């Protein structure tokens, strides 16, 4: 089935709701309206307002209720209208859901999904990349797909997982990517990265919308004789340390690319992992290219300068390749 990124998500919700009556949806404007980005368009018509629940505007209540429902055996999937709003239910996620199984053996099979990221001029409160708040919270899983197929397969896995999963959908991709998705394929296991493009000279480790930037830049550099390997992390927690080490060992040079802001971003974590695992395998410093340390500015020229660009990526790669 040819699906855009957002329709792949919608389709995954439909498949899971048809398969498993324990799966249901909650969120703001996901029913009659079908969601701010139409990820749930028409679902209320098929499954009814009892399984596609328009909630009050109250993120802590939504996530709290999802946790409670999950304790009775249900599998709620919650939509944040924008993932920036997770800050309004931070305690429910990081203290209630994340610590439940460790503390008292009670699994919390919920998914919190919604749009992240910039590039669409959403301004400081509709463009954030909140992954590190959750990557740094033991007990959560964090997923961010880069293609419609991965979005579909990973969302199936996230819904079937017994742990609270943050499912981050880069809104820049929602309608810009389209591909054939096998809707009868099995779920894609969480925690496994994917080599999006093999290469021998240098590895770019990235995820989300930046995978597209990395692939485009790699094609460009191939013309100049630099063969870049692109590793798409797909799951940010747990990280696929083996795949990270494997690509580093293969190419001996690593650049980490993320749209998230720099300080405290995931590049640091990956750098530390590589120091621990591959110190002797590396022929150059582990570099990172990221957004700057600021809120995401609204105006297009500002946002463009703020986000990592293909040009900056090419420069970084060439510099590292010469090392």
């Amino acid at each position: 089935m040819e699906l855009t990124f957002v329709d792949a998500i919608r389709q995954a919700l439909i498949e899971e709701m048809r398969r498993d009556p324990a799966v249901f949806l909650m969120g703001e404007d996901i029913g009659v309206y079908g969601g701010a980005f139409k990820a749930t368009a028409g679902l209320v018509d098929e499954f009814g307002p009892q399984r596609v629940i328009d909630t009050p505007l109250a993120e802590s209540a939504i996530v709290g209720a999802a946790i409670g429902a999950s304790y009775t055996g249900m599998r709620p999937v919650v939509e944040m209208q924008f993932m920036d709003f997770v800050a309004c239910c931070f305690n429910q996620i990081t203290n209630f859901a994340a610590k439940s199984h460790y503390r008292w053996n009670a699994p919390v099979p919920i998914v919190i999904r919604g749009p992240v990221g910039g590039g669409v001029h959403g301004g400081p409160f509709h463009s954030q990349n909140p992954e590190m708040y959750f990557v740094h919270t033991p007990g959560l899983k964090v997923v961010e797909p880069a293609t419609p197929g991965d979005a579909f397969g990973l969302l199936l896995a996230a819904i079937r997982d017994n742990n609270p999963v943050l499912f981050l959908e880069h809104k820049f991709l929602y309608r810009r990517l389209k591909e054939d998705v096998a809707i009868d394929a099995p779920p894609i296991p969480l925690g496994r990265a994917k080599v999006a493009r093999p290469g021998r000279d240098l590895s770019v480790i990235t995820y989300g919308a930046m995978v597209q930037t990395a692939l485009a830049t790699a094609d460009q550099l191939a013309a100049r004789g630099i063969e870049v390997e692109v590793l798409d992390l797909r799951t940010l927690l747990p990280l696929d340390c083996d795949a990270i080490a494997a690509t580093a060992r293969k190419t001996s040079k690593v650049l980490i690319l993320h749209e998230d802001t720099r300080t405290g971003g995931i590049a640091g974590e990956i750098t530390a992992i590589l120091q621990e695992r591959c110190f002797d395998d590396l022929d150059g410093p582990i570099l990172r290219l990221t957004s700057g340390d600021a809120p995401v500015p609204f105006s297009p020229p500002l946002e463009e300068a703020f986000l990592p660009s293909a040009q900056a990526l090419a420069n970084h790669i060439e510099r590292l390749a010469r090392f």
Partner: protein
Amino acid sequence: MPKARAARPRPAAAALARRNGQTAAAMVTDLRREKLRFDLRETRRDGKVVYEWEGRVTDPPPLRETAALSRDQALAIYRFMLMNRIMEQQLENLYKQGQVVGGVYFGLGQEGCSVASAFALGPDDWMAPMIRNQGSLLVRGFAPRDVMMQYMAKSGSPTRGRDGTSHFGDLEKRRMISPISMLGDLIPVMAGVCLGERMQGREVAAMTWIGDGGQSTGVFHEGVNFAAAQRLGLVLVIENNLWAYSTPLQRQVRITDLAVRAAGYGIPAFVVDGTDPLQVYEACRQAVARAHAGGGPTIIEAKLMRMKGHAIHDPASYVPPRLLEFWRRRDPIVRFEGYLTLKGWLGESERTRLRAEIEVEMAAERAAAESSPMPTPDDVLEGVYCERCHHPTPHFQGRPS
């Protein structure tokens, strides 16, 4: 904006009442001339879940007279309302021409509420707008070009393109706090503004708005309760426009009048017809006076209807058409014009002249906005921190007590 007034030292009686923890008698004053309910029916049509409304489309009653507004003030409110509407028409126009970055939010049908509430504030008072309160920005002294440039992400905008919409403020001159997108968070912040002012010896009002949607947030509860416990001059206008984005009121709450929540905080409340600027002004005037007297917060629930979608991209097809029809008969500008005409304050020719005048002004504002360049990114990573570029300074008047 009314003329500057000497700073008000907090009256001793109020301080005493506050210290004694005296409970304010909670009461809801309903100023409306028609008490409406809008019970929607959720049903299916052609397999689709839809909302229906079975009420009757009636004509509205006349506005509720208030002695508190002079002719000039009434006309000033009218002018701001017209500016609000015409400015939003220009914004729609700019959007269609592709000059707007992102979306546009409209306050169509809410102009009377937005303007008349802000009009009740004094120059020492503070406010913080929500996205539909573009009228209140004008009342507070911002120019239409400020709003336009925000939407166009221009370098000349109050935030220099860093943020959009009504997300801007002015600490010094206009005492306006910039909102953030997360609904509800302004409420404790505005309570804190009153607290800070009180500690400097002044009782001020701090006005902000919230929707029927936003009042379900936890921070609404924390903020109103904090203001009540500390008896701070928060003036909270709940713009109950029946929809939070696509979600009707009855899916959000199990009550009809949001004002009843005031009882839970021990504070007074008003219910007003939000399409009648006189009622809105009267309630806000009383709330502001109460704040100035150190009497604490007030909630004003304004009943109205969002006459467009959530933002420009939203056709609002979830709204039953007859419900819109009902409210179209309650256009605040038409109603207010009727009132002003009846009073003999506004003749046909003045009306035409005023409208033309505003159209000209707005065209000039628009031209100015369009001529502002887009920002350049040289300093995009600067200003994250205040490195002694600003100097927060309190102005004590009398000892904090």
